[in-house]
């Protein structure tokens, strides 16, 4: 009923924690059995270790949160040697998120990561708003995104999903560009660039000044973008943005997503992925749906 099949990914259910919100699984692995997840998208890997941005790195907004973590991670080699072996014991596909400052960083990181047998797919992070060099620049110019996708595809032994930024004028143009460049799938959306100012200090709350907005506040933006893009591309979409419960998952499928990733909600309810996986069959039964794949794109299909 919940099985979903995407390039490189045979998922027992379509629910996975989103990159950056689940580290490398160890913390949530203390709370529940990770085997129940559809997949895990691990924290972004960069070629070299990164500490990330100064603190404060998070700020709250109505229905959302701003973050400017800045891709803190121990670097691709250490992730491969220390983190992936710990995930190997789980029967859950691992999707490795890849980020970089230069195209060559992405290519080398992707090449290393895609060779690891634990990794079943790559997610190309061309949309992190919190790093000065690279990051979002790669995700806002279609030609640049396409070139990066093609170069990573050329070295990757695993399917490549491209995580799109919502901070663009024409999301369909971005999606088509990376699809034509060989992307096997899309993740959408990443966070929306935002800012908050402290009334007492009269300065931005985040040390990085700007951050990425996530949480329920961005769900309508993601739904709209997936609705538009899924009608134009053939490759599957992993829907991301403000998902809090099974109803939200169903809405994403209706918009055109074929799987979903849960981010901020994990912080609010650490068991949210489990609860959604538990609740989905009941919701589908109530809708007289035998297979969740039947819902994909129903909002626009004639």
């Amino acid at each position, binding site marked *: 009923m919940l099985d979903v099949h995407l390039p490189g990914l045979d998922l027992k259910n379509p629910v996975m924690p989103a990159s*950056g*919100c*689940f*580290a490398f699984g160890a*913390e*949530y692995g*203390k*709370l529940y059995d990770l085997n129940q997840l559809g997949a895990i998208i691990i*924290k972004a890997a960069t070629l070299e*270790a990164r*500490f*990330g941005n*100064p*603190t*404060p*790195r*998070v*700020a*709250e*907004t*109505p*229905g*959302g*949160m701003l*973050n400017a*973590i800045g891709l*803190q991670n*121990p670097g691709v080699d250490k992730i491969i040697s220390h983190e992936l072996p710990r995930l190997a014991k789980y029967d859950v596909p691992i999707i490795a998120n890849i980020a970089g400052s230069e195209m060559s960083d992405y290519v080398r990181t992707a090449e290393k990561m895609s060779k690891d047998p634990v990794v079943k797919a790559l997610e190309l992070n061309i949309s992190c708003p919190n790093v000065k060099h690279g990051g979002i620049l790669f995700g806002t110019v279609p030609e640049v995104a396409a070139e990066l996708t093609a170069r990573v595809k050329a070295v990757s032994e695993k399917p490549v999903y491209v995580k799109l930024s919502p901070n663009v004028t024409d999301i369909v143009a971005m999606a088509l560009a990376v699809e034509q460049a060989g992307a096997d799938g899309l993740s959408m959306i990443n966070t929306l660039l935002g800012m908050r100012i402290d009334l007492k200090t009269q300065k931005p709350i985040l040390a990085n000044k700007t951050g990425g907005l996530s*949480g*329920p*506040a961005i769900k309508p933006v993601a739904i709209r973008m997936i609705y538009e893009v899924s009608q134009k591309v053939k490759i599957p979409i992993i829907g991301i943005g403000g998902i*809090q419960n099974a109803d939200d998952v169903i809405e994403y499928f209706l918009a055109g997503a074929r799987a979903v990733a849960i981010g*901020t909600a*994990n*912080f*609010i*309810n*650490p*068991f949210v992925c489990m609860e959604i996986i538990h609740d989905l069959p009941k919701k589908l039964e109530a809708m007289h749906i035998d297979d969740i794949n039947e819902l994909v794109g129903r909002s626009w299909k004639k």
Partner: protein
Amino acid sequence: MIQEDMITLSQREIADDIFELKLQGEISGEISEPGQFVHIRVGSESGSVAPLLRRPISICTADQRHQQLTLIYRSTGLGTQLLSHAVKGQKIDVFGPLGHGFPVGAVSEGGRALLIGGGVGVPPLYGLSQALADKGVQITHVLGFRSEKDIFYENEFAELGETIILTEDGTNGRVGRVTDVLADLDFDVAYACGPLPMLIAVQKMITSKPLYLSMEQRMGCGIGACMACAVHTVNPNDDKGYRRVCCDGPVFRAGEVELC
């Protein structure tokens, strides 16, 4: 660490915008050290997404036998203001206990401990003081507040050991800040919790004795996954180079992490 709906046993305002909240539930039995914290979600019962994130609140005391938890917090923003409206019998979504607290074992029976607290950093020191007193440690408390209206638990602390109260405006106790009296005190180990400038000042003054500091940092998940609360280590050769305040702390030995 568990997530549960704890039951509100009582709530009262014990100083200006400072609330004492007593909760009942299984989390009380999970607490291993004074200085740990819980992550509280407020307003969720209405289905609201504001405030969205949980609020980290330090544990004042835990009564494992009666499954009770006492929290003392300042009502400052939307989340804590909503929490301050919780009444007896109300359920509150609590996740915890989280983090590593104060090492009670850092001082032995008959030893002398100095507890230094500032403002809303004072509550976890009360649980620590209880644990140290149970162990037979001689305790001195140095507690700083802005003004008389901000003072709480003065008598409770006094029952456990010598208690020096300071206020910045001199309306109660001695006038000044906690650092004004430290030079005259004798102790084997010191513990501090309070605003960052206070921790920095205390760390500058106490250099020859073990000192443990409880840090505050904005958090997302509270369990070490989101990296929102990462701080640099002081030792450049440290393997990781960083600590997460939520799960590696909030209590660190002075000199382990950069205070910033």
